[in-house]
C-alpha cells in the first residue's frame, strides 16, 4: 500500500550527523580520517577548467580556414598572455601584415582548419570546500571530498534562501508566536544566527542583511516579499545560490505561523552555541531542505545520544503537524486512522486521520499532515 503521509521535518536534539562535502569535479582532499575539523577549515580543493574564448582567426585575417595553421604563431598547448600575438599574416614583402591578438590570457586548446576558430582556455578557477560543520572526518571519498561526522542538534526548515553560513545562536523572540521585528535587530548581532518566533517582515530581514547577521530562523515569511529579496519571482522552490549575507530558514511556511514547539525549545536551549545554517532548498525529486546544525562540543557530550533514527509512519499517538489550511501550523495527536476513504468539504475522497488539537477532534486528510520527528 502506498503511503500518503509526508515524511516530517527533522527536529532532533542529539543525533549523529553525517555531512558529505564533495567537490564538483575531482581534485585533492587535504583532510585525513579521524581528524577534527572546524567549520571554516578547507578540506578539499580543485581547479575548475577555465572559461573558453573562441577567436575566429580565419575571419579576422581574411584567410581560408585551411590556411589558419600557417598564420598561427602559437601552437596547441602553448601559453599565451592577453594581447600577445596569436596569429599574423605574412603580408606583402613583409609589409601590410595583419595580426590577431589574444583577448585573454590562457592556453591555446585547439585550432580548426574547417571553421578557422582558435580556442583559448583561460586559467583554471580554484574551488575550495570547507568543513561547514564542526566534527571529525569519518570517511574520505577519494579525490572528491569527505564525510564529516558530528553529534548534536539537527533542525530542518521547510524553505530557505541563502547558502551556508555559521554563527552563534541568539534567540530574540520571547515566544514561538511573537514576531522578530526590525527594532530587535542591531549591529551587535553581526555574524550571529537570530531566532524569531512566528514571522519576520521584509523590513526586519533587510535590517538583518544591513547588520551582517549570519542567519535568521523564523516560523514564517511572506511569499510575495521574496521577490524583493531574490530580485525575481520565485516560480519553483530551488534556492541556495543567492548571494545573501543573511541566510533565511523558514520552519513552517509562508505567512505568520508560530514556530513548532520542539523547534523553538531546541533553539532556545542552544542559545549562545555555535551553529551552521544553510538556506538551500530544493523541492523536487531528491528534496533538499534548509537546515540548522548545532554540534555538541566534546565537553558537553553527555552520552545519551538518541540512536532511534528509524522513520516510522503515522500511527495512533503520533505527533503531527497540519500543513495546509484549515488549522495550518497546528500540532495534534493522532487518535484514529480510519481505513476507508472519507469525503472532505471539497468533496475530495481521501484517507484521513482523526487528530486531537487542544482537546478538539478534527478529521484531516493524511496528506495534509506531517509526522513531527523528534527524539
Amino acid at each position, binding site marked *: *500500500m*502506498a*503511503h*500518503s503521509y*509526508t515524511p516530517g521535518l527533522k527536529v532532533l536534539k542529539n543525533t549523529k550527523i553525517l555531512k558529505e562535502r564533495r567537490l564538483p569535479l575531482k581534485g585533492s582532499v587535504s583532510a585525513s580520517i579521524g581528524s577534527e575539523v572546524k567549520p571554516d577549515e578547507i578540506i578539499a580543493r580543485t581547479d575548475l*577548467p577555465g*572559461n*573558453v*574564448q*573562441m577567436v575566429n582567426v580565419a575571419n579576422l585575417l581574411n584567410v581560408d*580556414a585551411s590556411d589558419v595553421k600557417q598564420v598561427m604563431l602559437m601552437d596547441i598547448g602553448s601559453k599565451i598572455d592577453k594581447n600577445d600575438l596569436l596569429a599574423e599574416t605574412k603580408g606583402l614583402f613583409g609589409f601590410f601584415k595583419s595580426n590577431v591578438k589574444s583577448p585573454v590570457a590562457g592556453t591555446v*586548446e*585547439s585550432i*580548426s582548419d*574547417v*571553421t578557422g*576558430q582558435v*580556442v583559448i*582556455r583561460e586559467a583554471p578557477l580554484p574551488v575550495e570546500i570547507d568543513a561547514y560543520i564542526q566534527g571529525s572526518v569519518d570517511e574520505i571519498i577519494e579525490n572528491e571530498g569527505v564525510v564529516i561526522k558530528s553529534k548534536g542538534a539537527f533542525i530542518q526548515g*521547510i*524553505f530557505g534562501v541563502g547558502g551556508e553560513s555559521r554563527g552563534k545562536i541568539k534567540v530574540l523572540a520571547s515566544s514561538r508566536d511573537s514576531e522578530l521585528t526590525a527594532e530587535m535587530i542591531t549591529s551587535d548581532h553581526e555574524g550571529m544566527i537570530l531566532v524569531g518566533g512566528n514571522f519576520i517582515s521584509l523590513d526586519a530581514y533587510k535590517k538583518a542583511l544591513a547588520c551582517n547577521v549570519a542567519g535568521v530562523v523564523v516560523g514564517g515569511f*511572506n*511569499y*510575495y516579499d*521574496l521577490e524583493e529579496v531574490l530580485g525575481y*519571482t*520565485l*516560480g*519553483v*522552490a530551488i534556492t541556495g545560490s543567492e548571494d545573501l549575507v543573511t541566510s533565511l530558514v523558514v520552519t513552517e*511556511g*509562508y*505567512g505568520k505561523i508560530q514556530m513548532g514547539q520542539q523547534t523553538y525549545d531546541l533553539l532556545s536551549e542552544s542559545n549562545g552555541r555555535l551553529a551552521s545554517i544553510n538556506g538551500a*532548498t530544493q*523541492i*523536487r*525529486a*531528491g528534496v533538499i531542505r534548509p537546515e540548522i546544525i548545532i554540534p555538541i562540543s566534546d565537553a558537553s557530550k553527555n552520552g545519551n545520544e538518541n540512536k532511534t533514527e528509524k522513520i516510522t509512519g503515522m500511527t495512533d499517538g503520533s505527533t503531527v503537524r497540519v*500543513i*495546509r*489550511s*484549515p488549522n*495550518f501550523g497546528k500540532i495534534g495527536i493522532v487518535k484514529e486512522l480510519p481505513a476507508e476513504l472519507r469525503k*472532505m*468539504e*471539497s*468533496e*475530495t*475522497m*481521501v484517507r484521513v486521520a482523526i487528530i486531537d488539537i487542544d482537546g478538539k477532534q478534527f478529521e*484531516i*486528510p493524511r*496528506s*495534509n499532515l*506531517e509526522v513531527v520527528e523528534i527524539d
Partner: protein
Amino acid sequence: MKLRSILATDCGSTTTKAILIEYVDGEYRLTYRGEAPTTVEAPFEDVTRGVLNAAMEVEELSGRKILDDDSIITPQKGDSGVDIYISTSSAGGGLQMMVAGVVKSMSGESAERAALGAGSIVMDVLASNDGRKPHEKITRIRQLRPDMILLSGGVDGGTTKHVVELAEILAAANPQPRLGQDYKLPVIYAGNNKATSDIEKTLSDLTDLDVTENIRPVLEKENLKPSRDKIHDLFMEHVMQQAPGYKKLMSWTDAPIMPTPGAVGALIEMVAKKENISVVGVDIGGATTDIFSVFQEQFNRTVSANLGMSYSICNVLAEASLSNVLRWVPFDIDEKELTNRIGNKMIRPTTVPQSLEELVIEQAIAREALRLSFVQHKAFAVNLKGVQKERTISDAFEQSDSGQSLVDMMELDLIVGSGGVLSHAPRREQSAKMLIDSFLPEGITSLAVDSIFMMPQLGVMANIDKKSIAEEARVAALEVFEKDCLIRLGTCVAPVGSMSKSEVPLKINLEFKNGEKKSIDLQSGELIRVEVGYEEVKAELIPAKGINVGAGKGEKIDTIIFGGQVGLIFDGRGRPLDVGSDPNERISNLKKWASALNEYPELKE
C-alpha cells in the same frame, strides 16, 4: 496470437503504477491496478523494487500469481504469470536534452521537434544565430548538464562550416552527463552528411557520438523519425543504464522502455489516425504540463517545463499574474493571503485541498496553467510535419513563429485531459469546465479525461516491435483505451462570432435515443447543460447570422453528438471568453456558470 494477459508499469518520479490487462469474454479489459512509491532514490536506489511492490498489489487484488521471488513470470503458464510485461519511465526527471541547429528557426526548430516528439524535455536550443557569443553558449552547456545532445544543421551536401563550428563549441564546453561520472555524454549528429567526418574528428574523442540521417536533408523536407528512434535507443543504452535498477528492469520487459511522454504521444497519434480526427491531449502534473496535438495528421508535443500544480505552482502565478488567476475565483479573497497559500502548496506539494475554497483556488490555477501551456503549444505547433513533409521552397522560409499554427479550435474534435487535477477532480463537471475554460474549444468538441492515467502504458503497448505480438498488443491498447482509459465527459458546443449582437445566437433541436425531443435557445453569455449519458443524440444546430458553429457563418449543422458523464454543454459565452472586469460582475458570472453545470453546489452564496 491472442495475448491472455499484459502487465504494464509506468515508473514516475514519485509513484510507480502497474496495470493488468486481461483477455476476458472476447475483449481486452483493464482488470486490476496497483501502485507503490518509486524507488529510484535512496535508501532503495533500485527502480525494480517499486515495480515489484506495484505488481504485488496487483497480485493481491487479482489473486493471480504474477511474481516468482523477485521477478515477473512471463509468459503466462496456466493461471500464473503474464504473457508480456512492458514499462515506461519518467523517474529521475525524465530525459533532459539540449539541441543545436545552425539556424534557430530551421534546423534548430526541427531538432527541438524531434527531441520533444521522442519524449524529452528540451533544456535549451543552441543555434549559430541565437545571438549568444560562443563563450556564453559554452557556459550554458556546462551549466545545464543534459542527458543527451542532438546536433543538427545544414542540408546534405551544403556548407559545413557552421555546423562544425557548433561542434567545436560543444567540444570546448566538454559537457558532462547529468547522471554518473564514468561515461561520455551521448551526442547524436543529424545534420549535413558532408560534415560527418569533421564532426567525428571534433567530437568522437570527447563524447559518445552517434550519427544518423540528416533532420533536414533538403530545405523543404523534414525527416525526424531517424533522430527520434536514435534518441529512444540512446535513452535505453546510456541514460537508463545509469539510473539505479534499470538494467535489471530492461531485462524484464518485452519491449524497450519508453520515456513516459513519448509513449503518451505515440498513443494519441495512433488514436487520431485511426479515427481520422483532430485531438488535443494534455497531462498536467506537479512540475510540468505536456500538450500533445494532432491536426491535419501532424503530431506535435510541447512540454511547459515550469507550469504545474505543485512544484511549479508559483511559476503559474508568476507567469499568469495574480489577476488572471483571480478571475476564476467566484469569491473575494485577500490577495496577499492567496499568494501565501499558493506558496505553501509549492513547499508542501503533496497536500490536497480540504476545504471547498481551497479546491476552487487550485482549479483556478489549473485553468491558467492549462491556458498558458496551450498558448505555448499553439506557437510551437506550426505548419511543419512531425515525420516527413514535402514542402515548396517558399514554405520552407515560413517555419518560425511566423508559421501558421496548426491548431484550429473549430477543427478540433476531441480534448483528452489527464493529470491529478483533471482526472481526480471530485466532480466530473469541474473537469469538463476546466477544459472548456482553458482551451476554449469552438464548434463541436468532445471532452474526455484519462481515468487513471494509463495512456503511457497503452502507448508502449501500441508500439511493440516484436512481430509475433505487435499487432495483438496494438489491438489490446486501442480496446482498453476506448473502454477503460477514457471517461467520456460529453460534448461542448460553442458558437463563435459577434454573440452580443444576436438575440439568440444558436437554436438547438435535440432528439435523444428514446425518441424524446428538446429545443433550446442559447442566449449570449449563457451556459446550458443537458444531462445525457454516453449515447448518440441527433442535433440540429441553427446559428444566427454571423455566428459559426462549425459549418461557416450562419450555416446550419445536422449531426450526431454524444453525451457523457457530464452531458451536452452549450457554451454561449463567446470567444475569447470575457468573465467581466468588474469584481461584482465577475463573481456573479462565475456563480451563474458554475450553477449551470452544478460545478460547486456547496459553494455558499
